[in-house]
């Protein structure tokens, strides 16, 4: 058997590959958790600052609930048994839900000119960056990104009081969510 000039390098490559086992193992993509952790930390920082400023301009006592916000029910056991696919999917789905809530609250506040929502734009920007990066990682992992959620948001003509209450609720929840995101991604980093 004779090898042509074009076949020789390929044959050599296949011999090398079989000897080193480079191509024998299937290629596995590992998400870049460092990048995701950085995104989550930046979002956490931004949401903390925004909440702090919001409390300064409109201090509200008591608890503020918004039923349409994503529910985060984690326990200590959940954190130790955390799974890559389920966690990334939950992360992205919730990020998209928060994105819609913030877009809604921004649009509503624009109708009420005297409502101040400091740093909300910066939070939205961080959130979108994080979601974009996460979606990219999910696709590279060969997973199907979750469907974008459609939270049942109140009509855009909500009154000023409702907008302020909703902003508090969104930022309080987002602060907890991004704290969870940082820790969940750190836990996943240790598992890969």
């Amino acid at each position, binding site marked *: 058997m004779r090898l042509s000039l074009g076949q020789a390098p390929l044959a050599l490559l296949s011999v090398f590959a079989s000897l080193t086992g480079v191509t024998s193992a299937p290629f596995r993509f590992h998400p870049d958790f460092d990048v995701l952790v950085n995104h989550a930390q930046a979002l956490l920082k931004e949401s903390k600052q925004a909440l702090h400023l919001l409390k300064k301009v409109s201090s509200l006592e008591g608890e503020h609930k918004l039923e349409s916000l994503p529910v985060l029910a984690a326990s200590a056991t959940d954190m130790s048994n955390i799974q890559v696919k389920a966690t990334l999917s939950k992360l992205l789905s919730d990020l998209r839900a928060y994105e819609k809530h913030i877009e809604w609250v921004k649009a509503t506040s624009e109708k009420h000119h005297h409502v101040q929502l400091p740093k909300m734009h910066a939070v939205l920007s961080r959130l979108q960056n994080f979601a974009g990066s996460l979606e990219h990682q999910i696709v590279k992992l060969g997973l199907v990104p979750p469907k974008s959620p459609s939270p049942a948001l109140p009509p855009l003509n909500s009154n000023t009081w409702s907008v302020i209450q909703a902003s508090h609720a969104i930022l309080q929840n987002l602060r907890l969510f991004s*704290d969870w995101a940082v*820790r969940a991604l750190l836990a996943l980093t240790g598992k890969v």
Partner: protein
Amino acid sequence: MANIVTSACCVVLAAVVVVYAQRRSQQGARIQYEKIGSDVTMQCGTLGSEASVTWKVNGTDVENRREDDGPRLALKQVDLSVNGLYSCFQNPTGELKDQIILRVGNPPKEPIVTCRSNTYPKGFYCSWHLPHPTYIPTEFEVSVRHGLQDLQVQKDPIHKNRCHVKLPEIFSNNKYRVNVTATNALGNASGFLAFDEISIVKPDPPEKVVANPIPGNPRKLEVTWNSPSTWPDVETFPLKYFLRYRPLILDTWQHMELSDSTSYTITDAYAGKEYIIQVAAKDTEIGTWSDWSVAIHATPWIEEPKQIIITTTTEADENETTPSQASPSAKPQVGDTLGSSSAALTLSANLFITCIIVLII
């Protein structure tokens, strides 16, 4: 000596007998609780108002008692000094008719409740205390709610006023609500605390703090420590640390905040000075700093003073050249070896040159 031992034994025995007798005499006595500052009336059993009785407190006649009180004993504006075992005897037979243990005290005020999680994310504990003493037995009942859910409360086996609760979920926006009700014979009161989980997180101080000098570095101290063993998951819930140190002779601390590291090298220590060092811990995102760790003391590496040999040369010394007189340090020995070898070298060179000259001749 034997007399002392015998006397001591007698005293102990007498004390035991007295206590036993008091216990026996109190059996069957009823307890009457009264508020400090109030006027108290004790009734001798079911005797009618015409009956004449004698009252004794702890075996002694009650003084300044009004005769027209009949079978009742009235005490005005009582304080703690009136506590005791009151016995009434019917006159003139002297028959014991009733026994009352009078205990004066206060109804409880609202308990002060504090909660803390040193085992986040597993659970937290709550402690409580009364702002004022009640002087009488007081019981506490604790309930904890998270949102609409009642949580199971576990009493601490050691600390009477403490209970433990498992965190049902974390990163939750629902508040925890703790209610502690104090109850005694004179009344009850409730203390209440509501909090977010992130506000009560406070780790225990770091453990096994060690500071070691670094040989050859008179201004450095290497400090290492362990994360608190009560902190369950340091990987997912990392801690940051705060180190403080100062020379023992100064009052001003120097501080250093460290993220996720359990060692630090102090590089600006004063040479030869003893340092006091402490470390505190905090979750990287939530809660508050722990208390300071137990203070440790350390001194940077100090260069050992060089041994100086002072010799006075005398005729006798010059004659004595025993090895035992040689310096024990290595350096002089190295110098001596070099000296002898150079002498040998000179001798060999001389011999070599002599041989060459002879050959030439």
